[in-house]
């Protein structure tokens, strides 16, 4: 079937602008503000460290920091004491004369400046208890107490502490390739993270036992790289961590009735596992569908009642990790399951006190395993040997191979959907962080979104997988996992909101408003839209995998990501990064008007004007005329017959230029539409248009975003159709995060407002 393409060409008048040049005052000059301008000005010039294609360059380097630590936790006082030897390797081409060491617990010192940057106001009246806690209590003193900083010979090293950063003076400058070892002895008061907040600490249970989830517990090296020099931006509590890779050898001494797990391989399992635990552990290594309990709830309940005065030392060794975290308690139930990833087996592990049951024994380890599979498919096979999920109240935080997660049923073991889905989502999210930033090690101190945004996007993919692989995890009525972040329509309220409370994604996390939307929701949604709607899964997935593999065990910057996605796909993305990541523009694309035309044999006003102005006769021009349905020139009889029936000129042309057989096989469009699209929102996006025909069928077409390159406000498209179109909808599946869909339909839809829908629902009850 061949459409009369020439018909469209001869009705070129639709796109002709025969308007006389108006007299406008001369506007002042401007620079290139086109939304499709390439990001040369925003990006650094590519260099030997990071290439124009977004990959590590020939001179790319990264430092290494290895740790040997001996730690002890005093369960009565909740104090951690430690002694570490740090070995730092300078792989940079620069000479270093000092080192920066991070002291994150100092955000909790008695007079931490971090407390000073939150705003507060005197309340004219308040309850007595609040008054007392505000003005009369001793505040918590949780900072590091550094007892000594010494060289391997035992000589004191000169050092200066500036809040959460400590500068250690090197006795001799470090040159390229040099290694330097030094020792630090320290202790600190572990915080009650339920009362005081924090990403680590303990929860004190009514039975007097503690659940310790310990991280940021040691003075550790800051990152030194080609982009920042020393990344020694202070820890104010919100932006997270920038850390170099290295090897950890950690010995942790805790009460003998405690269980413990953390980053790395447990090197002395026989010393700390009972015979029963060892047997169950061997079983777990071969169990791929159901977790095997290593330490049961009855066994945990026995331990809870005791307070052993003896001690045990757990020895862990981790290679090529950027941090170290561990959890310990006498309350733990411990279960494990094996996961096949590529040609290796990985262990999915959960640690939880009985307060987490029945939810935790049912789903935690399965959620861990499922997440590892999803993320491995999209990036690379999980390279470590285990991933642990630890139950901790009100926590959601990630470390290499271990994370803390909330989700606790009530005292009767009952839980609602919010608790269940909350727990599953946080486990998926935190385990996912093993990939971003633990392995694809971006600078969280500067760019929160680079790990949180990418991870929240991946979380959405993993949640959808989880819902498919474990339909038993879904509640009745949920056909798929009810992901909160990811789908385009969930971000429209944020993006369409008050501009004073919105910052671009490319903003340091400390300074943004609506942190969750800014660093998690919006970038995750932007990537999801890129994948599902703009680029398509095939191109996106290939490029995303390329990025992950280029930068695994390395330190990427935002540009490395932006460049790689384009480099691997041949899909120009500068307009997308510019709009979604560098600006706070939102999406609003609509249909301004649609005009419908039919072929006619009568010359229309346009043709008559043209002939008169150009001194031509209509017979010579011999045009095919199109008449608009709403105009005075329209006659109802034009709705009958084919286009060639209604235009002798057209009929004669067809008879002269096509054989009877060709004419028989031709399809003639009868209906012509001039669509004018408007774009009240700043973001340029593809225009997805769904045509609904009179016979009930539909067809969807997508005009790429580049359609907006000449006019940022309005574009027109002319289409011809054999079937009559009864309605046209822009973005029918709500894929573009359009904040206002009231202008998306022709004819204009009168939708019942959300308010009336709810009111009618309530009335009906």
């Amino acid at each position, binding site marked *: 079937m061949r459409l009369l393409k020439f018909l469209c060409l001869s009705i070129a008048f639709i796109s002709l602008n025969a308007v006389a040049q108006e007299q406008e005052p001369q506007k002042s000059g401007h620079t290139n503000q086109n939304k499709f301008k390439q990001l040369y000005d925003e990006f650094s010039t590519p260099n030997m460290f990071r290439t124009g294609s977004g990959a590590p360059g020939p001179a790319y380097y990264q430092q290494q920091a290895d740790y040997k630590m001996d730690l002890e936790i005093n369960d009565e006082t909740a104090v951690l004491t430690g002694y570490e030897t740090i070995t730092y390797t300078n792989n940079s081409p620069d000479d270093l004369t000092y080192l920066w060491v991070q002291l994150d617990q100092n955000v909790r010192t008695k007079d931490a400046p971090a*407390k000073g940057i939150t705003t507060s106001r005197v309340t004219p009246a308040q309850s007595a208890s609040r008054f007392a*806690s505000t003005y009369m209590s001793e*505040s*918590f003193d949780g900072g590091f107490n550094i007892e000594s900083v010494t060289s391997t010979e035992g000589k004191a090293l000169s050092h200066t502490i500036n809040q959460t950063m400590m500068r250690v003076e090197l006795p001799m400058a470090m040159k390229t390739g040099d290694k330097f070892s030094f020792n630090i002895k320290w202790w600190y008061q572990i915080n009650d993270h339920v009362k005081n907040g924090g990403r680590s600490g303990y929860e004190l249970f009514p039975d007097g036992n503690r659940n310790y989830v310990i991280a940021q517990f040691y003075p550790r090296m800051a990152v030194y790289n080609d982009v920042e020099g020393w990344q020694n931006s202070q820890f104010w509590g919100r932006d997270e961590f920038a850390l170099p890779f290295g090897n950890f050898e950690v010995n942790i001494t805790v009460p003998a009735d405690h269980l413990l797990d953390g980053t790395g391989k447990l090197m002395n399992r026989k010393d700390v596992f009972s015979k029963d635990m060892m047997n169950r552990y061997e079983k777990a290594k071969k169990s791929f569908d159901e977790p095997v309990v290593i330490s049961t709830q009855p066994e945990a309940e026995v331990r809870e009642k005791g307070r052993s005065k003896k001690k045990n030392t757990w020895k862990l060794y981790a290679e090529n990790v950027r941090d170290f975290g561990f959890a310990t308690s006498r309350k733990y139930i411990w279960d494990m399951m094996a996961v096949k990833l590529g040609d290796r087996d990985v262990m999915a592990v959960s640690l939880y006190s009985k307060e987490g049951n029945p939810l935790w024994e049912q789903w935690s380890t399965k959620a861990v395993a499922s997440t590892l599979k999803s993320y491995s498919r999209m990036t690379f096979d999980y390279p470590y040997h285990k991933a642990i999920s630890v139950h901790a109240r009100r926590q959601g935080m990630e470390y290499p191979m271990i994370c803390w997660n909330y989700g606790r049923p009530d005292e009767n073991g009952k839980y609602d959907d*919010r608790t269940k889905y909350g727990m599953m989502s946080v486990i998926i999210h935190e385990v996912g962080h093993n990939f971003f930033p633990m392995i694809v090690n971006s600078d969280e101190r500067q760019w929160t979104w680079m790990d949180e945004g990418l991870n929240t996007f991946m979380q959405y993919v993993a949640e959808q997988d989880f819902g498919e692989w474990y339909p038993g995890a879904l509640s009745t009525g949920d056909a798929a996992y*009810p992901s909160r972040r990811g789908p385009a329509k969930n971000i429209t309220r944020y993006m369409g909101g008050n501009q004073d409370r919105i910052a671009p994604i490319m903003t340091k996390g400390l300074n943004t408003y609506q942190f969750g939307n800014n660093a998690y929701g919006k970038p995750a949604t932007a990537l999801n839209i890129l994948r599902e709607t703009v680029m398509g899964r095939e191109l996106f997935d290939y490029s995303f995998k390329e990025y992950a593999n280029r930068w695994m065990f390395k330190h990427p910057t935002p540009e490395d990501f932006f460049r790689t996605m384009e480099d691997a796909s041949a899909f120009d993305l500068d307009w997308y990064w510019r709009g979604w990541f560098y600006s706070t523009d939102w999406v609003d694309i609509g249909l301004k008007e649609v005009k419908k035309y039919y072929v006619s044999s009568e010359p229309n006003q346009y043709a008559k004007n043209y002939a008169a102005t150009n001194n031509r006769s209509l017979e010579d021009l011999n045009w095919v005329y199109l008449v608009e349905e709403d105009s005075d020139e329209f006659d109802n009889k034009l709705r009958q017959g084919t286009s060639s029936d209604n235009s002798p000129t057209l009929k004669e042309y067809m008879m002269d230029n096509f054989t009877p057989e060709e004419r028989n096989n031709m399809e003639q469009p009868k209906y012509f539409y001039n669509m004018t699209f408007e774009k009240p929102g700043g973001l340029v996006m593809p225009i997805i248009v769904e045509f609904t025909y009179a016979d009930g069928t539909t067809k969807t077409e997508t005009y790429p975003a580049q359609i907006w390159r000449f006019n940022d406000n309005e574009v027109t498209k002319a289409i011809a159709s054999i079937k009559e179109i009864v309605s046209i909808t822009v973005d029918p599946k709500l894929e573009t995060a359009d904040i206002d869909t009231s202008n998306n339909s022709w004819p204009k839809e009168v939708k019942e407002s959300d308010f009336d829908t709810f009111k009618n629902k309530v009335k009906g009850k």
Partner: protein
Amino acid sequence: MKSVKVILLLIIFPFFLSVAHKYYVSVTQIEYVKEKNSLQIIARIDVDDLELTLQERFDKSINLTSTDEKPSADDYIKKYLKQKFEIKINTKEVNFKFIGKDYENDQVVCYLEIKNITSINTIEISNTVLFDLFPKQKNIVKSKINSKINNLIFTKEDINQYLNFK
């Protein structure tokens, strides 16, 4: 080792966790539908924060949940909103009807209506929802009245906003 008292500071430093699911912003839409003489209000408030506030303010046993919720929960929400959400139209105080509420992800969506409003020349709004427990809370109100759209922000320091349509 000296024992230290661990307390809840009023200026609680918001230790945002990696998941950072906390919001400190509520969003309320107010629309004047002239054909119905009605002012329609849809308020979205974080469920956890509202639940904590109601527990502290009224009754520790209050639970906001989509399964097996006690009917008294609605009464408490209504009572709280009547205390914290005040509107004057054309300088006269008006009362709203609490139509009901729904749960959407982590938020409670409350539907309120003020009827018999034949015209709006001026409107004064006071929105102090959640300020009593969360001093950092910000309440955003998007109003669409007489074809004009306004974005109002309420904070502990700024609890009254006024719009003039004359």
